[in-house]
């Protein structure tokens, strides 16, 4: 259950937009046991350097039939910038697959709501739902450059909509307005699966909980181990003094388990 810690060969490191990269590694053991919504801890530094010290958690974006797994990530901090400099042929240690992914329920309309690079944890889910259920995909971003892989999603369903804040892709607008409109149009039962900025997921949850629509969210937190050893990745629970741990109980939670009041 805690996954595999393996040295993985880098097959591809492609810059898709200004600071957005697609990294593909050979990791058959991880690929074989990956569920949608799970993540890996990736070593970013070279030559056993101790700075930065920690691995970085990244959602598994894609799996290939050839034992490969891909990560879609943004080089924002020291760690991910170093990761983006690693080249094909190099070996990096990858620990995974980790955490509890999405729980798929097929007998209803599934609405995926992705904000910015939050789409990185939704593709495997979308592919899974496509097999057997009605799939609506809604994606929002600041601009087109933030979501360079939308075609991976648009080809999965004809119920695909994208909005950007600057109108550089799809309609100009906010994802919450798009969701609101969609919820008014659909008939029958629905479920929401979402990943994106905290404020977006909070707004999505509030919007759908009023309609009693179940909602699963994929969360992020600063994390040292990814396997429940350090308890660093705590998020307040909605109904008690305790905490949820993103790495082990998550990263996917039922949205009503989470205390959304905090800023994050």
């Amino acid at each position: 259950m805690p996954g595999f810690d393996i040295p993985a060969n880098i097959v591809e490191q492609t810059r898709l937009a200004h600071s957005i990269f697609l990294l593909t590694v050979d990791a058959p053991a991880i690929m074989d046991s990956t569920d949608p919504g799970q993540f890996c801890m990736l070593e970013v530094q070279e030559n056993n350097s101790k700075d930065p010290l920690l691995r970085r958690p990244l959602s598994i974006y894609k799996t290939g039939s050839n034992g490969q797994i891909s990560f879609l990530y943004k080089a924002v901090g020291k760690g991910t910038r170093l990761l983006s400099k690693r080249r094909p042929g190099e070996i990096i240690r990858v620990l995974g697959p980790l955490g509890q992914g999405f729980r798929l329920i097929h007998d209803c309309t599934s609405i995926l709501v992705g904000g910015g690079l939050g789409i990185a944890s939704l593709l495997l889910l979308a592919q899974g739902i496509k097999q057997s259920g009605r799939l609506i995909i809604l994606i929002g971003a600041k601009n087109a450059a933030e979501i360079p892989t939308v075609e991976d999603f648009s080809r999965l369903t004809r119920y695909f909509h994208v909005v950007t804040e600057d109108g550089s892709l799809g309609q100009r607008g906010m994802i919450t307005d798009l969701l609101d409109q969609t919820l008014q149009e659909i008939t029958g039962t629905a479920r929401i699966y979402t990943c994106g900025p905290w404020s977006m997921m909070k707004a999505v949850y509030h919007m759908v909980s009023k309609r009693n629509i179940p909602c699963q969210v994929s969360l992020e937190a600063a994390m040292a181990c990814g396997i429940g050893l350090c308890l660093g990745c705590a998020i307040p629970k909605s109904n008690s003094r305790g905490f949820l741990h993103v790495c082990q109980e998550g990263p996917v939670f039922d949205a009503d388990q989470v205390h959304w009041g905090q800023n994050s």
Partner: protein
Amino acid sequence: MINQKKSTPISPDLSISIGGLGLKNPVLLASGTCGYGMELDDLLDLDQIGGIIIKGLSIRPRPGNSPPRLVETPCGLLNSIGLENMGIEAFLRDKLPLLRNIKTPLIVNILGNSVEEYFEMARRLDGAEGIKAIEVNISCPNVKAGGIAFGTDPETAASVTHAVKKATGLPIIIKLTPNVTDITEIARKVASAGADAISLINTLLGMAIDIKFRRPALANVFGGLSGPAIKPVALRMVWQVVRAVDIPVIGIGGISTPDDALEFLMAGARAVEIGTATLIRPGTAEEVLTGIRDYMKTNNVQNVKNLRLPA
């Protein structure tokens, strides 16, 4: 045919003893970085390790501190987990039975808010099947003395040691905080109060500020610094304590390679604990163990105790 003279490869003896507890080797998993033990199963061969030190338990469950609880610093990790744990009863009931098949000795780390709590914890562990020793975290605030850490006052550190020794016949390891002026003074006090061994160092108190949001990076403001950044400080303190007391000393602090561990063993540590490194690379303890064995073979060191430098 030329007679090639081969020196017989030695098979180094890594076994050690701490307060009467025999360990097959001196590489232990540090409390707070190996969970309740089973989290690392499959990622590490737990049977190969010298000892497993279960995360700090308190008399009642503790929810821990509000997030953010972690900040990465150069070559280090600052944490303010707040000693989140399920409490001793839940551990004994739900976790300990799962650990019965592991051949490696289990050591439980305990923490308390008062001397009485430490006593009570040690008493409850005394009869628990499978527990071979107790490590006592004295870096916690003494609630009755205005929140000053037990481990920063020699007298209080000694009274905690007395209390746990009275409560149990299990070997007692007192884990020292480095946040003191003279570590040897505390070490001498706990040794004369009956401690069977001393482990050090716990984390160094530190902080970081988020300049973007203009607030302390940890919700708790201060946190404990661990990782390679603290190794030189830890090594210095281990060296001092080894020369100040007659009981075994266990070295902790930034050990992530065999070389790091060898430095501590040369400083005179009887054993070492692998902490933060396990979070980053779960198999570190096994790699360290292999590296120590290889070093001993290469350098013809028969017994791990002989690594200690004379000075």
